[in-house]
């Protein structure tokens, strides 16, 4: 015996529902039941019940999970396309039914639907347009027709005050990505058959991975329209269809372009670990003697390699087995040209990483010298970039050295490496880190590895300059 009946993708007994578990919670004549039965049938025909995940919106269909014997997720108002995006990015072979009303999709959830459509997410969206907020009692929806009376437009919707009804299928069709956009209605016999066809196409597109499908369905709400079920269907035929034409706006099925997966292959644990550790080889050197934590502030302007100079110093200290912290100047001022970084090295764990009282100041331009010079500890050291700085220090309780860092870097054709000269000078003049470890750490600290040799030569030049010229205690004499 052959029968035509409701698909078994819907439960026959609604155990999740309280009260009568034989009938739905929908009002008599509601369009939701008609459409949800069609979706269930299509899921059954496509053989994807186990892969199907139904997204319930907020609205009358919030309880769709009472009925669907599929995976179910209840979503917050308007966000089903984002939730569906999340699901599909984890489970590309799932079949996600994104079921949304007009307040949900065209009102609060406009952002989510537009962007999911524009990304061409592999989703099938059913947009149930009954031109009203049903569950909350019948307020104006973005799709409410002009002059239509609702609880919040008691004198009718006015375009001057409320705007005109939103035609969502046309909006979605204006995007390039969607594979299928169609508007249907569950009004007449003819339209019911077309809707059933559209529902099947929309879901099959997802199974075939053809992209984003959007099916708007004009659906009756007899209760809020204050009509009988039959009158409400006539209202769709005679009134709604005038403003919301029923047609297929986009159908890319003939192109049959399966969306390509361009992602990188999934790394296993070993590959992941090597990606995360980078190509750094662990090195350790005998630690130089530092009797207490040392704070080094490197300051200048953007383009002098301030931050990478700090990174070089920090990597080098780390290679000595020291604890180290590196804290840059931060925020919009970075874009204003001022740059500084504070590196602290210590043989024990570092408490405050801030630049309160540096032991060493590497001042790479005049303003930064002025800004930081009085913060340097008594007995501390200031190394200035003598190419750019000839200011008076005005302190006799600190050691001062000058090195033409910018000139040397320019001569080596790597002007952004002026800080390398400064850091090398620090290594020669102090026991914070050794020049050897600086050289060994250079590769790991460079963003542009092709400049390794040039940087290495520059370090040698700086080292020679300091050792041969210097250990003179007044940079002004030198300059």
């Amino acid at each position, binding site marked *: *015996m*052959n*029968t*035509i*009946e*409701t*698909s*078994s993708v*819907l439960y*026959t007994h609604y155990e999740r529902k309280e009260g*009568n578990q*034989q*009938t*739905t919670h*929908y*009002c*008599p*004549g*509601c*369009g*939701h*039941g*008609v459409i*949800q*039965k*069609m979706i*269930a*049938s299509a899921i*059954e*025909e496509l053989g994807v019940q186990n892969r199907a995940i139904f997204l319930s919106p907020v609205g009358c269909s919030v309880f769709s999970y009472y*009925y669907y014997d599929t995976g179910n997720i209840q979503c917050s108002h308007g966000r089903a396309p984002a939730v569906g995006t999340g699901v599909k990015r984890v489970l590309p072979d799932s079949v996600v039914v994104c079921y949304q009303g007009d307040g949900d999709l065209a009102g609060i959830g406009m952002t989510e639907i537009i962007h999911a459509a524009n990304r061409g997410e592999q989703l099938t969206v059913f947009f149930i347009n009954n031109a009203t907020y049903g569950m909350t009692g019948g307020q104006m929806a973005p799709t409410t027709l002009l002059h239509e009376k609702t609880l919040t437009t008691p004198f009718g919707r006015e375009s001057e005050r409320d705007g005109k009804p939103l035609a969502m299928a046309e909006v979605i069709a204006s995007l390039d990505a969607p594979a299928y956009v169609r508007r249907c209605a*569950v009004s007449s*016999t003819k339209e*019911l*058959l077309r809707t*059933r066809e559209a529902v099947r196409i929309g879901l099959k597109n997802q199974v075939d991975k053809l992209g984003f499908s959007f099916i708007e369905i004009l659906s009756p709400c*007899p209760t809020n329209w204050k009509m*009988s*079920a*039959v009158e409400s*269907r006539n209202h769709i035929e005679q009134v709604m269809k005038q403003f919301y034409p029923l047609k297929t706006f986009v159908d890319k099925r003939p192109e049959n372009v399966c969306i390509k997966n361009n992602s990188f292959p999934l790394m296993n644990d070993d590959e992941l670990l090597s990606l995360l550790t980078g190509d750094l080889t662990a090195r350790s050197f005998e630690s130089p003697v530092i009797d207490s934590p040392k704070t080094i502030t490197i300051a200048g302007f953007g383009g002098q390699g301030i931050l990478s100079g700090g990174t070089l110093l920090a990597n080098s200290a780390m290679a000595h087995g020291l604890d180290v912290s590196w804290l840059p100047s931060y925020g919009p001022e970075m874009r204003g040209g001022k740059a500084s970084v504070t590196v602290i090295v210590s043989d024990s764990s570092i408490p405050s990483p801030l630049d309160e009282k540096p032991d060493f100041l590497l001042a790479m331009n005049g303003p930064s010298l002025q800004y930081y010079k009085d913060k340097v500890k008594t007995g501390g050291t200031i190394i200035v970039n003598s190419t750019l700085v000839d200011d008076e220090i005005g302190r006799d309780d600190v050691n001062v050295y000058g090195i033409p860092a910018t000139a040397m870097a320019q001569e080596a054709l790597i002007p952004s490496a002026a800080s390398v000269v400064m850091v090398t000078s620090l290594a020669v003049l102090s026991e914070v880190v050794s020049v050897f470890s600086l050289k060994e750490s250079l590769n790991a600290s460079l963003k542009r590895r092709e400049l390794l040799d040039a940087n290495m030569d520059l370090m040698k030049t700086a080292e020679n300059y300091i050792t041969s010229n210097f250990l003179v205690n007044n940079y002004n004499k030198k300059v």
Partner: protein
Amino acid sequence: MKNLVKCDVQRCKGCYVCISHCPKGCLTIDSSINSQGYVPVSTVSEADCIGCGMCVLSCPEPFALKVIKENKDRVCKSA
């Protein structure tokens, strides 16, 4: 055996959309009231059901209606 429309009167909410979609006038309003207070539809015995399934397709209530078809070589179909 003829095609036959069957209504589960306890599930029917009496919206009568099915009646308006039936091309053969097989459905009518019943004289009884179900336990939920709705007056369900019932079938007109003398009518000639062609087994098109439009009543099932148009019905908003799952499992309220089904059509049992006389034609045995057609596959079972859900609507």
